């Protein structure tokens, strides 16, 4: 199986590069810069995931902070529950931590994905602003539920059983390894029959239906998938700052995500990556401006809409711009 071997080799090489970069970063940069780098990676996951809904499928979710919250709380809670057992079974601390962390992340993602599925079934018959209102409502309901859930710390937030808070498992390696995995998965989804069908739904839902496309099913799948990626981002976020608080997942967080994908270009994966990094960096640069940064974001959005409504990349990908138009229609990219 040379192909499988090649893929494994590429994956290992990518992970090694991420690991080495992470080592260098942790050795050479201040905690402050490291934190921005982690946030940028988390943003990339959020943006690439949300873009699947708002960009590729042309639906409009403004409640993705809700899915992120489910992932964050889910991962934090599951992590705290399973850590003692895993540490008892595996005596190498680093290994037990890594296992706990990733199991917790996946559990959070599954919970978030399931919520996406539940919200998606009734609401994806709605379109445009109606769907937006439902997702907005969902995001707020989730936040308020966590705000009142006593066993998850209610308004104070969830910090596990340890007085020092949740273990901070989140490192450069894990953030970017997950980001790389999610980018590859979303890319493979987008450039497949499923992805083509999602774009067809965006372009003309009636025609897509007439071409035997199971539109509702595909929209629910995309929604659940996107929610699950937001869940991963939430889990990474929770274990970055030793706790999760309901106010981390306000409506503004959803708006941040929308800014990311609009800046990058709705429908473009590479655009979402750039947008995610852009928002992480500019949010920090504007930190001194405090609440005025939201005004600046609004101004920025208006300017983008006027000057370049398709965003940085439009619906194109970076690698489309870098290579010439192919003569024969080769399949776009492999894993």
């Amino acid at each position, binding site marked *: 199986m040379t192909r499988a071997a090649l893929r494994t080799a590429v994956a290992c090489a990518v992970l090694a590069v991420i690991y080495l970069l992470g080592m260098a970063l942790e050795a050479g940069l201040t905690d402050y810069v490291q934190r921005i780098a982690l946030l940028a990676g988390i943003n990339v996951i959020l943006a690439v995931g949300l873009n699947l809904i708002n960009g590729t499928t042309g639906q409009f979710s403004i409640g993705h902070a809700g899915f992120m919250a489910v992932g964050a709380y889910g991962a934090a809670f599951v992590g705290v529950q399973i850590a003692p057992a895993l540490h008892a079974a595996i005596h190498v601390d680093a290994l037990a931590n890594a296992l706990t962390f990733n199991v917790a992340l996946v559990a959070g993602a599954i919970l978030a994905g399931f919520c996406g599925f539940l919200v998606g079934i009734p609401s994806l018959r709605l379109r445009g602003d109606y769907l937006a209102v439902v997702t907005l409502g969902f995001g707020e309901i989730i936040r308020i539920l966590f705000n009142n859930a006593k066993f998850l710390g209610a308004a104070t937030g969830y910090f596990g059983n340890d007085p020092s808070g949740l273990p901070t498992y989140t490192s450069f390696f894990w953030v970017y390894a997950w980001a790389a995995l999610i980018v590859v*998965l979303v890319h*493979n*989804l987008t450039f*497949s*029959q*499923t*992805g*083509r*069908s999602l*774009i*067809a739904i965006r*372009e*003309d839902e*009636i*025609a*897509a*239906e*007439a*071409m*035997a*496309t*199971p*539109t509702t099913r595909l929209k629910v*799948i995309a929604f659940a998938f996107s929610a699950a990626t937001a869940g991963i981002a939430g889990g990474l976020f929770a274990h970055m700052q030793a706790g999760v608080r309901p106010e981390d997942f306000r409506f503004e967080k959803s708006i941040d995500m929308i800014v990311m994908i609009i800046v990058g270009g709705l429908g473009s994966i590479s655009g979402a990556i750039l947008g995610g990094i852009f928002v992480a960096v500019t949010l920090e640069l504007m930190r001194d401006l405090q609440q005025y940064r939201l005004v600046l974001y609004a101004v920025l959005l208006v300017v983008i809409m006027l000057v370049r409504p398709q965003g940085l990349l439009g*619906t194109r990908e970076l690698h489309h711009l870098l290579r010439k*138009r*192919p003569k024969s*229609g080769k*399949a776009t990219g*492999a*894993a």
Partner: protein
Amino acid sequence: MSLLELDSVDKIFGGLHAVRGVSLKIEAGSIFGLIGPNGAGKTTLFNVITGVYTPEHGSIRFEGKPITGLRPAEIAARGVARTFQNIRIFKTMTVEENVMVAGHHLHTASLFDALVRSRRYERDERALRERARELLKILALEDLAQEAAGSLPYGSQRRLEIARALMLSPKLLLLDEPAAGMNSQEARALNEQIRFLRKELGLTVVLVEHNMAVVMNVCETIHVVDHGETIAEGAPAAIRADAGVLAAYLGEAPEEALS
């Protein structure tokens, strides 16, 4: 057994009786014309057949099985393909991708196969692409395969809609004004293409068309509706001579007006 049977179908929008008691039978392998003045209910009939609208009364059978009330995607999957009067292509996608979208039945690989790019996924993707290429060739669009569909001229977009519909491997093809916006040369080529499709792909074709040169030339049976009701059905020659049809198109016949 006819391929498609409509039995006294009614479609009502509020106070408008858009289709009233229309019954028709379309035999497998025929080329069937559906004509009538503007607003006669032709496109509504297409929408009722393809499941976009559910009729208030009456039943629709395809291959002897009732399809009334099924969703458009289910009806399409059973082999009823259509084009649209006001072109509905996927504009930002390439011509080839437009066609590939309709190939769900050729693509059995799961989403998981796509995510990990398995061999099964690649085999299906290749099959889709090859089939799309064949169909584009039939419709003389193969040179435009990589163009953005929205950038094509009008006539090519109409042919692209046909290619995309054929990707469903349909038994019945519903064409809603395929010759609209085509010049006479393109319309003649369209006649040939429709005949070719029937012969090579074993299709049954239903045509809504205002271009009489196309309808009279290519259809074997013509069904005429006006104000949602059937006013005539028969061979082209009989339809051309039918007083009721002339009245519907040109106004009341002179002797009636005089009497």
